[in-house]
């Protein structure tokens, strides 16, 4: 059994866990983050990518709204490369509740969310697809955020300050002695090796899995697993985030990202933390709701459907226990107070928009326990340094401005070696993924990361396979790089099958229209042109 000694173990490699790792590292506290899968494989990559202004919560949950607007401002400052300042609109329709409108306007003022009414004529000119049923439109400082990029930026920053992490490492049990946490036992899922990690503090930041982690030692953390389904459209339908101005409900947010639009969501309580399957009923239900904001929605191609699990926290005194009634606030559970065990803390609830604040609260708590007096710096210190203009210029020269800018945003300070490689060997500048403009050189760079164990991991790092071809062409184009990294033809074929299978799960609920054609093309490509063997269907 391998033994590791550190101060703090953070369980969970989502935005919150990685945010905590960065905060601890900035304060000089040695920490190790353990993640059972790849980073961001759970809720942190399964949301709409909306950086809330707080407008959505002002009526129901003033505190959540206030937290959102504060964090919205901070993140725009520290992570501009992960955020597109699209602004957002709240659209009030003829049929909507006028009382709610009044409460909303008042609520925004109370929470400190600046709003500005947009004249209807201008609104229809600026967003031509918007329903003509809209009667009032308000602009708020919503924005869109790339959850992957944000998470990797946090991780790279944490590593720079000494933070460690290990993926595919599943915590098996908490190590407790005399009502004191001494660390965790974990299993390396790649090698099968058991690991004993000794630490003073254990932070449970496992999102939808936090109740499982707590229950390992018989502690009760009440998480409501609330599944939200989302659709990805093939176009950027709006320039801005579009919210419906009514009591928050299903199917009332459109979020534009690069060349696609994400639309959602739904809300159902589920049993499993990885229940990510969307069925066709969810899709037709969402489209029906979407028609209220975009009448012609049925004409647009849907690339895929996906779902994420909101780990909502049910506090004991909450009255409304169903989905949207539960607070979007977060809670820090000190298990010394709750269960009489020292050194264990769970962080539950919250939203991506408030991940940094959650991390700050947890780290304050940890620093208090460890008696480290350093102050939190995550609200001021940018997630990435100013990029070297020389590297950037060279990248633009070699790849063109659009591709270069996207690459610089993804790679940040590590872009230098990739740009050098392309300069030496220009053909490495060929795109593997044309949608996201990912070059061969960048894929090679990503494959050197020891945390990349599969094509699916590579997808999360490089966004390969996330665009409109859903892996059909870019998977093929990654072949030589995969073979080099993973070794052997059989493994490469297996990686293809896993990735395309994973993509297929998101495509089957939306298998009609142009997406059906696209999928048939992919089938023809693999089964015919490339001569892959057909699988037997399992009944």
């Amino acid at each position, binding site marked *: 059994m391998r033994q590791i000694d550190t101060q703090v173990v953070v369980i969970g490699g989502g935005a919150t866990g990685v945010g905590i790792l960065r905060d601890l590292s900035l304060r000089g506290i040695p920490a190790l983050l353990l993640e059972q899968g790849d980073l961001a494989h759970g809720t942190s990559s399964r949301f709409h990518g909306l950086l809330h202004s707080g407008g959505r919560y002002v009526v129901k949950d003033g505190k959540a709204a206030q937290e959102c607007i504060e964090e919205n401002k901070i993140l725009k400052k520290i992570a501009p490369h992960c955020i597109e300042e699209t602004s957002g609109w709240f659209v009030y329709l003829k049929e909507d509740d006028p009382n709610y409108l009044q409460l909303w306007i008042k609520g925004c003022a109370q929470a400190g969310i600046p709003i500005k009414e947009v004249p209807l004529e201008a609104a229809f000119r600026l967003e031509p697809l918007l329903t003509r049923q809209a009667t009032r439109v308000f602009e708020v400082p919503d924005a869109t955020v790339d959850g992957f990029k944000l998470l990797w930026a946090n991780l790279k920053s944490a590593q720079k300050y000494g933070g460690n992490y290990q993926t595919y490492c599943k915590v098996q049990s908490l190590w407790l002695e005399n009502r004191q946490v001494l660390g965790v036992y974990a299993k390396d899922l790649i090698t099968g090796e058991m690991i004993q990690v000794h630490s003073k503090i254990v932070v449970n930041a496992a999102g939808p899995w936090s109740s499982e982690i707590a229950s390992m030692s018989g502690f009760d953390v009440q998480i409501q697993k609330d599944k939200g389904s989302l659709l990805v459209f093939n176009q950027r339908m709006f320039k801005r985030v579009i919210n419906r101005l009514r009591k928050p409900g299903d199917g009332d947010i459109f979020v534009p990202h690069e060349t696609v639009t994400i639309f959602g969501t739904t809300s159902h309580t589920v049993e499993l933390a990885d229940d990510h399957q969307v069925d*066709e009923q969810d*899709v*037709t239900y969402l*489209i029906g709701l979407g028609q209220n904001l975009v009448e012609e929605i*049925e004409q647009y191609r849907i690339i895929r459907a996906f779902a994420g699990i909101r780990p909502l926290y049910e506090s004991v005194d909450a009255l409304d226990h169903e989905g949207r009634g539960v607070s979007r606030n977060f809670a820090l559970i000190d298990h010394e107070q709750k269960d009489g065990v020292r050194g264990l803390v769970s962080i539950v609830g919250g939203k991506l928009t408030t991940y940094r604040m959650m991390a700050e609260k947890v780290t304050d708590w940890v620093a208090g326990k460890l008696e480290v007096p350093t102050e939190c710096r995550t609200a001021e210190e940018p997630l990435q340094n100013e990029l070297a203009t020389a590297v950037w210029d060279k990248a633009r020269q*070699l790849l063109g401005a659009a591709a270069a800018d996207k690459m610089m945003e993804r790679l940040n300070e590590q872009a230098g070696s990739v740009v050098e490689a*392309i300069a030496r060997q*220009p*053909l*490495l*500048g*060929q795109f593997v993924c044309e949608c996201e403009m990912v070059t061969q050189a960048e894929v090679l760079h990503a494959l050197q990361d020891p945390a990349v164990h599969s094509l699916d991991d590579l997808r999360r790092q490089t966004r390969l396979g996330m665009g409109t071809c859903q892996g059909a062409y870019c998977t*093929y*184009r990654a*072949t*030589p790089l995969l*073979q080099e990294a993973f070794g052997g*033809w059989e493994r490469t074929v297996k990686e293809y*099958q896993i990735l*395309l*299978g994973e*993509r*297929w*799960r998101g495509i*089957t609920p939306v*298998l*009609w*229209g142009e997406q*059906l*054609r696209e999928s*048939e*093309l*992919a*089938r*023809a*490509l*693999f*089964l*015919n*042109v*490339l*001569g*892959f*063997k*057909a*699988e*037997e*269907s*399992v009944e």
Partner: protein
Amino acid sequence: MNEMWDAVVVGGGLAGWIAGIRAAQRDKKVLLVTEGVGTLFYFSGIFDYGDVVRLRHLPKHPYTLFKAQEITQGQRFVQEICPEYVMKDTPQFAFTVLGTVRQGDLMPRSMVLPDQQEQGEFVILVPEGLKDFFPKIVAANMAREFPGWQVNEKRMKVGTLSEWTQLGKSVTSIDYASIWRSEEGQRALTLEIDQLKREYREAGRSSNKLVVVLPSLVREYFDSSRSKPYKNEFSLPILEMSSFVPSPHGRYFAEYLKHMFTDLGGELMMGARAAAINGKARSGSQTKVCQELVVNSMGKPLHLKSKKFILATGGFLGGGIKVGMARKSIREEVFDLPLFVPEKWSEPQFFAPQPFAQIGVETDALMRPLDPVCGQVIWDNVHVVGRMLAHWDPWTQRCGGGVSVTSGYAAAELI
């Protein structure tokens, strides 16, 4: 337009072209109306027939509509129009673009792989900067598939492209195919192959067992005899790989079919979309006769009168069938024919046979559309061909070319 055609073929994919060419060859007055180019752009270069005997035992498979002899006639027809295409009683194999081996039935002579039991040497001639081509993978796969063979790579450059590739720009196989058709390209290949042979001689090695492997379409078996001046023999045997997308085989094959059709007197209307049909029921029968097809061409409706109509608009990939949101509507676009739609729509594994692939029009043995409720023929003079037919999956059954060629040819025989 008051002309009366013997047949109007709607759709310019493989099945449509075969029907049109065969009809024209039989001196029929035939018009082919097409909106685009169908799905030939990813023709691997190989006509797949699949396991015909087994597929003919599947209930309702399109092959069950034909006599075994009709399937053979279609194959012969392809060989007649493309003399370089060969077929044997035993399976034939070709290289995919990845250097793996795939079975194929009717394929160009220059694509057929040698016996895996024999020994020899492959030299892959790798054109500089060829897009979507991975020489190392190809070489490794070939070596695994042909244990008794040596595999080597040789890089080659073509002068006109060198500036382009130095900038890091790749070259598509379509571009290379057009270079191979030029005098310069042919010269470059000839030189390269002669040099290879010389190197072997100088090293004191025999080049008897040497086979030069080239990415797709170097030879010109799609000879439309209009633009093509060169026909070269090389000093070593050449083996071509099948095409990736966008396919040079598809591009030149479509062009070749077009020329062949018009040379035979067929008339062609491109960029035209079928808009409506007019027909009436025969007295005392529910079966209707289609009298005219209305197409929109350059913004104007044209009324096309014909004795027969061949529906070759493809399935949902080709655009002949439109599947609406949440499958609330599934429509054949020209005649609004009833479609077979499987109850279960998809399988959870991507690579499994997919039920939705079975969607299409059910027909009688003359490929006339049937009413699924009463089993009667709907249109007496409409024949459905190619991917529009129901109850098959071209990819998992590996019979796309076979069904399209057979049905297109058989329909032309009915005109």
